[in-house]
């Protein structure tokens, strides 16, 4: 495509991505347009100073240097506490994360003192703060809430799982797991 400004749904896609949203198949046409014209979008956004990243789990986002204050940290710590709590159950943790509808009022975050301390470190003190974090997760495309008081994670939440794997054993990642699912390096290294 010669005239990059004619890329389909450009305004909508750019509008979502520049606000930090992760686009995955659940987003419908905008995702598929982005996927089908990835190189053209990548070229255009790169010229505008944005790095379009592709994750091997099949979603796209703008990769920035990160200067969002506590927002990103709060989301990550919220996720780590959830993983830590699910570890005390018997079910597969990843299945429990992705295949469940999480009822907000039943979240395990404040049950243990150690978890409360961790959350307090990032200023998540009460249920209202938890709800704010969930709204933020939704805004960035990591989760989707329902009007039944539940939310569920979308595939971009794999970015938090990647962080856990890196922290566990950077040199020995599970076969076929996060090592293969990280950001597309060529997209990562696109000069902004």
């Amino acid at each position, binding site marked *: 495509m010669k005239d990059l400004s004619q890329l389909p749904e450009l305004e909508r896609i750019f509008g979502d991505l520049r*606000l*930090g949203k992760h686009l995955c198949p659940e987003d419908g046409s905008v995702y598929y347009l982005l996927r089908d014209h990835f190189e053209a979008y990548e070229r255009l956004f790169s010229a505008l100073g944005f790095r379009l990243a592709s994750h091997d789990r099949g979603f796209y986002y703008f990769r920035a240097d990160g200067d969002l204050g506590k927002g990103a940290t709060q989301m*990550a710590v919220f996720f*780590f506490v959830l993983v830590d709590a699910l570890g005390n159950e018997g079910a597969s943790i990843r299945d429990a994360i992705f295949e469940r509808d999480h009822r907000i009022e039943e979240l395990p975050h404040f049950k243990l003192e150690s978890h409360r301390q961790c959350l307090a470190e990032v200023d998540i003190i009460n249920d209202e703060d938890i709800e704010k974090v969930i709204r933020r997760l939704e805004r960035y495309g990591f989760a989707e809430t329902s009007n039944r008081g539940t939310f569920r994670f979308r595939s971009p939440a794999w970015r938090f799982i990647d962080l856990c794997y890196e922290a566990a054993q950077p040199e020995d990642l599970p076969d076929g797991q996060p090592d293969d699912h990280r950001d597309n390096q060529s997209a990562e290294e696109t000069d902004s």
Partner: protein
Amino acid sequence: MAITIEDFFRFGSKYPRLLGALFEVRDAIDTVGLRALIARHVDDDAPSRQTIEEQLLAYGILERAPYADTAFELRPEVRDLLAWILKRQELATADVIRGYLGQLSELMKELQAALDAADYPAAVHPLDDLDRTLEKIRAHADGNFETIATQVQELQSQRKEMTASERFTVINRIWNRMLVPLRDLIDDRGQIEQRFDRLTRTLVDLASGNMTSANMASGDTASDPIVRGQVAPKAVRQRARHTRARLARTRRVLSERHDDAVREVEPLYEQLRADSMLLEGASRMLKELRQFGASALDLDSKIGLEGWRPSGLISDEYLEARLVDLQGYEPEGDAMLAEPPTPVEYDPLGRGQVRQALAAACPIEDAFEFILEQWPERSLAELLRVFGWVHRGDFGPSQTPEKADECAYPTGTTTVMAWPVVLERVDS
């Protein structure tokens, strides 16, 4: 009392649940425990508990533990039999198989020596022992697979009883202590294949009547090669063919059963390994968060979220929050005095609150003493967390004077020992 096959199996057919329960008891069981077990697992019309207890001992199913006359344990032979029936054999490690390979080597040497000396009757004994050793290897291969399959099923059905980490510990042991070393032994260039190849060649030669180098060189000129000692008698050749068939079966079973076990274990192993690492990573980061604070994790830059907007514009996040607040707002009339709010269950000290109190009191000669006096109603854990912030320099430079002595800070029933920390100023 000598036990007969009939006695043993009659007892087993009358009390199968009791034998199963005894198998599950890993340690010795005392008299009281044994009688309770009997009561739970035999029918009401059975003989008295004491009679059954005496039969268990008389038939040699139980024996006394070496350290106590009133403690009993299953005889190893009975445990092995039950383990085979229940598909719960002890897993044979690569070391066990290696032991059998050593035996195979010795027997092959003995066999070769008999052939070199054309002493064919002497070849029968090592052939017998080879048969037994090969059958043991095959039995271990079968047993390993059955046990592993049973354990995998148990792990899959015990999701509620065991955490992901506990299940990974079990599967990791099977994978790394059993399957991986065995695979190394079985691989094309592994010890088992090499040993089996050599044995096959020897048996083929013996069974087909090929002359060995030793008896070829003997120079015997008799017309009958059997008489000359260049060909083994028919009975020995047939015996060698049987051992060769047994070897081929063991080789096939060993390889197939190992592949079956890997297929059984691998998906669960990979799943639990990934879960275990996920959990380990999350726990590690939470631990670092508690010890060093959020800034040490550098999560903001690792996640690298885009949040671009033209300078001077109100962020969508703020705007959205504001709109949510205003949504459906209607001015109310005069507000009635409300009932006192219910006490907040958990209201930890916030950084802002701490910063404000410290700033008002600076310079502070002993930060921990100040914290204890300032918030006497707070838990020690929370006060230590606040002290951690001060000590780490979150609010401004802090230091311990060179000549300061260690101080004792009594609080409630606990006395905390620490060196005094001076906080001269609070940075904005």
